[in-house]
């Protein structure tokens, strides 16, 4: 069975600093990989996705993620965070894109 690990429950970053959120997955082949963001009380917004091809994926809001097959990782990065980036971030994997397994999430706090 596939699984997703987000080892950081909570991360605090200063505004303007760089950000990296970790995601490791377990699956026999390369699954579809996603990062979603959730603001309090809201649904999930897709930041970016990886299906195949270039392992560095660009998303919305200045986010990017890099797929590393050898490490079974799909870490999310942003060079300079903004206060509006404070939210919960979820990594997800799936054999097909509609049946996703999510990680437990990383809560991002931004300090001035």
């Amino acid at each position: 069975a596939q699984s997703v690990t987000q080892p950081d429950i909570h991360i605090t970053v200063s505004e303007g600093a760089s950000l990296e959120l970790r995601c490791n997955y377990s699956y026999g082949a390369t699954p579809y990989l996603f990062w979603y963001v959730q603001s309090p009380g809201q649904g999930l917004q897709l930041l970016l996705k990886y299906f195949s091809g270039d392992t560095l994926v660009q998303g919305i809001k200045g986010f990017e993620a890099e797929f590393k097959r050898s490490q079974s990782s799909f870490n999310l990065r942003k060079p300079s965070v903004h206060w509006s980036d404070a939210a919960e971030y979820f990594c997800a994997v799936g054999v097909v894109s509609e049946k996703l397994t999510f990680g437990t999430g990383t809560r991002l706090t931004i300090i001035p």
Partner: protein
Amino acid sequence: DAGVTQSPTHLIKTRGQHVTLRCSPISGHKSVSWYQQVLGQGPQFIFQYYEKEERGRGNFPDRFSARQFPNYSSELNVNALLLGDSALYLCASSLGGDTQYFGPGTRLTVL
């Protein structure tokens, strides 16, 4: 274009009752998936429907059921509610084999 819509926004039920949650997908999307998100956790897959047929089911008891209508909207039904069913229920739609887009969710509280 309207995104995925869900109703109601909030719902309070008591143990043993039944609940029906509704989802309208993005226009043109034929696939609808349902997820349960318990507070402090990531969403957990419940069902996927495509062209009115069940295409997948997660590890949930038979108290949970769903269906998809000819207009591709969907209902999630939960019978004999338990306290542990309290959660945010998310609906997502896609064209089929493509990226899912999520609705705002229905917050269910079971007392």
